[in-house]
């Protein structure tokens, strides 16, 4: 697919989006005209309707739908759903966008159906997104942008964007940003890349990112480093996915050795979350691998005395993963790793490596790990 292909297909996708919204509204009007209570059918987003697709390697929505019929209890969200669809349609038409927060504020002009809390407007937005995703339409097609921008990027990467005024191409060389970094925008659909990197290193903490960037780790290691800042935002996930897909780069994750790091940060990046299964097909990165810190690293790198005991929450989270998480259950290596951690009873932060010196991570740990990517957890 070339850039001009993309341009064509983008306008087709816009047509598809508008048609979808009009079709739903027309159906509601038809119901009313026939003297029936109008209904909107929406995919069920609750966990019961989420399936882990082993082949694709991520969580997906199942086929269940809920029917939102206009009654006392639903009157408000029924009206809100329709008004938000109308908003989306207008934005597609004018090629504009609104962040989730902007949508919430825009609703303040919707009289009685204004949202009182942003969680409400987010939920309705999710419903509409889910409907669109079933038709293969990503959220950005609806012109709803996430509030958070993506993480920072540095390393052997040139991002190819365009000047929105002139259409002229713009290239950003992420190896020439000094101690600063490239800040991923809220929507990345239109980006292209050029790189000679051998892999992408996705890093949990901002502090570690700054350390690797200040010491230009990416230069010697031949990679792109991306700051996730805890659980990665949607923009970050989509960026990594696009970059990895287009440039055929492996993605290595460098996060804390604790159940939160495994099952929340890494697992979200790789297979998505059950709560937002309707967007996983666009966001998750099935090709990601877990570089560390692993429970075995604690042994191999002598970190034992820089660990902390597992909290009750940690233990619960780990046991829950072993019992219920289809991703973990599909991977014996993960089962073994989590069991190992439970039997050790401790967790380690990325910072634990600092016990051997603040830059031990650059000089020893990462080179040693990267010499054997086959050993990474799946």
């Amino acid at each position, binding site marked *: 697919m070339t850039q001009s292909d993309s341009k064509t297909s983008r306008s087709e996708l816009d047509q598809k989006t508008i048609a979808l*919204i*009009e079709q739903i*509204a*027309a159906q*509601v*009007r038809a119901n*009313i*005209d026939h*003297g*029936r*209570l*109008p209904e909107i059918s929406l995919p*069920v987003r609750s966990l019961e309707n989420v399936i882990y697709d082993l082949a694709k390697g991520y969580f997906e929505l199942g*086929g*269940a*739908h*809920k*029917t*939102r*019929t*206009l*009654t*006392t*209890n*639903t*009157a*408000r969200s*029924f*009206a*809100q759903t*329709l*008004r938000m*669809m*109308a908003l989306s*349609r*207008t934005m597609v038409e004018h090629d504009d966008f609104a962040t989730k927060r902007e949508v919430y504020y825009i609703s303040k002009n*919707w*009289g*009685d*159906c204004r949202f009182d809390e942003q969680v409400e407007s987010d939920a309705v937005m999710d419903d509409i997104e889910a409907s669109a995703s079933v038709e293969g339409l990503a959220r950005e097609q609806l012109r709803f942008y996430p509030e958070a921008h993506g993480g920072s990027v540095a390393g052997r990467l040139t991002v190819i964007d365009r000047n929105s005024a002139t259409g002229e191409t713009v290239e950003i060389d992420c190896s020439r940003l000094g101690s600063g970094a490239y800040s991923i925008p809220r929507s990345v659909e239109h980006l292209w890349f050029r790189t000679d990197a051998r892999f992408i290193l996705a890093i949990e903490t901002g502090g570690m990112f700054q350390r690797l960037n200040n010491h230009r780790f990416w230069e010697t290691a031949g990679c792109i480093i991306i700051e996730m800042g805890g659980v990665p935002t949607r923009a970050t996930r989509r960026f990594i996915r696009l970059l990895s897909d287009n440039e055929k780069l492996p993605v290595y994750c460098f996060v804390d050795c604790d159940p939160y790091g495994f099952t929340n940060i890494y697992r979200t990046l790789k297979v998505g979350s059950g709560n937002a299964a309707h967007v996983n097909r666009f966001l998750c990165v099935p090709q990601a691998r877990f570089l560390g810190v692993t429970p075995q690293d604690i042994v191999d790198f002598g970190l034992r005395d820089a660990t902390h005991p597992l909290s009750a929450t940690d233990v619960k989270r780990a046991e829950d993963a072993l019992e219920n998480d289809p991703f973990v259950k599909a991977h014996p290596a993960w089962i073994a790793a989590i069991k190992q951690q439970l039997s050790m009873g401790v967790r380690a932060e990325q910072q634990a490596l600092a016990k051997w010196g603040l830059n031990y991570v650059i000089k020893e740990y990462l080179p040693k790990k990267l010499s054997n990517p086959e050993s990474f957890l799946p």
Partner: protein
Amino acid sequence: MAHRQREISISEFFLKNRHLLGFDTPAKALVTAVREAVDNALDACKEAGILPEITVEVSDRYGKSKVIVEDNGPGIVEDQIARIFGKLLYGSKFHKLSQSRGQQGMGISAAGMYGQLTMGKPLHIVSRVKGDKLASEMYVSIDTGKNRPDIHKKKQLRWDRPHGTRVAMEMEGHHQTGPHSVETYLKQTAIANPHLAITYQNPKGEVIRFNRSTNTLPKRPFEIKPHPYGIELGRLIQMLNNTNSRTLLGFLVDEFSCVGKKTALSIIALARKHSDRELSERSHPKHIAHAQATALHKAIQTTRVLAPRTDCIVPIGEDQLLTGLRKELAADFFTVVTRPPAAYRGNPFQVEIALAYARPGGGDVEVDAGGHMRKRATRDEPASEHLIAQKDEPVRLLRFANRVPLLYQQAGCAIAKAVIQTNWRGYGLHQPKGSLPIAPMAILVHVASVWVPYTSESKEAIEPYPEILKEIKLGLQQCARGLAQYLRRETHLHEEYDRRVYIEKYLPQIGIALQEILTLSDEERDLTIKKLDDTLHRSRTKRGAPHDAERFEDQP
């Protein structure tokens, strides 16, 4: 030490223990004195079949109080006056089983004794018997050492009343307002005695009138014999010794109520089986030995006997109670129940319960014929401030025994216990653990009995015998079911009202959205929304229309 042992007069005893009779504090003493005099007046009128008309007058000057109670009763013959007012444990009601207010022959003499103790003044009595030309006037005090009356002055005089009694007492007293006031006592008395008219003049000189709401006298209760159930062995032996009957059969039939010849014979037959000695219907009661009496006692408890006679108790009645309540309490919902009579320890009793619920802020929802709803205007704050609880308060209890309001010692009373032990949460009220329910409500409980078991001689609370507790609780549950129904209906109506208002808010918004998406004209939009409104209205009036949010379907 033996020579110092001595007999103690009952008057001396109660003089020292006067808190037992309700004369603990000046404030309480004042109410107790009024109560004793009014009770006596009402009982006297009842016995004589007179519609009672009572005047109460209270004055209070720096703790020196004067109470005057005057009735239109039958009057008292002169040679009884002194003993009735000047001797404890003297009366007409103790030895019979019959429902009455006073029963221990103690109250009015005790009030006199208290006045005498605190002010040194005797009682002043005027009484005229119907038909007599003149009235008797007497000043009486009690010789406590001997428990007998001391008559100070006595004379005959003209009195403008054709018949009646007037008693005036001076005592250390303290007049107060609120739930333990003379006025509250009289108001409650009026509720439980709709045939009574009271004129009350308080210490400020204000006159308050409680009118009668019926001219019909309550039925007169019959005097009865004890019911055999619940009679104790010792009492049975005593009765066997004291009877005038000469055969066991005669004894059983004569001395008990509800025991006919057939029942008596079954009892004797059963007793014979348990007894090792001869026992027949012709056995002489006085010759029955202890072991035989035990067998007889056992036989009585296991033989089927008719329930106690009910004509010995006269309840206020559901209609009258309701009339009395509506007259004195401003509430939105009333319910009342008169339970069938029951018995404890062989004593018949009967329980009446009423609830009066004042919906907070008033405002019931009304539905008109066209299906439209509106809220009724808010009710004014009720004047019955001390009789009905506020929204966040424990319910008020209006306790009555034989139509007499009980104002003190609520916590120890069977009525309070029964209310607390009832699970009001099951009926939609809030109830802290082990406490009265919280609701804008009054609970009236009336226990009528031939012998009310008070917890003390001051007659302030009813002993919580299991049988009495049970009856009160059954009555409460019955009333509570009605209340729960009322509350559910009210809640339902309010919800329905709110739902209608709610949904209508969102129709214009749906219109705007459809217009934007489908680029409708304003007319098209309004037409669509009008149709939607109609559809909703139709589906709403159908019963069982789904209020429920969303249907889930599996689409494989």
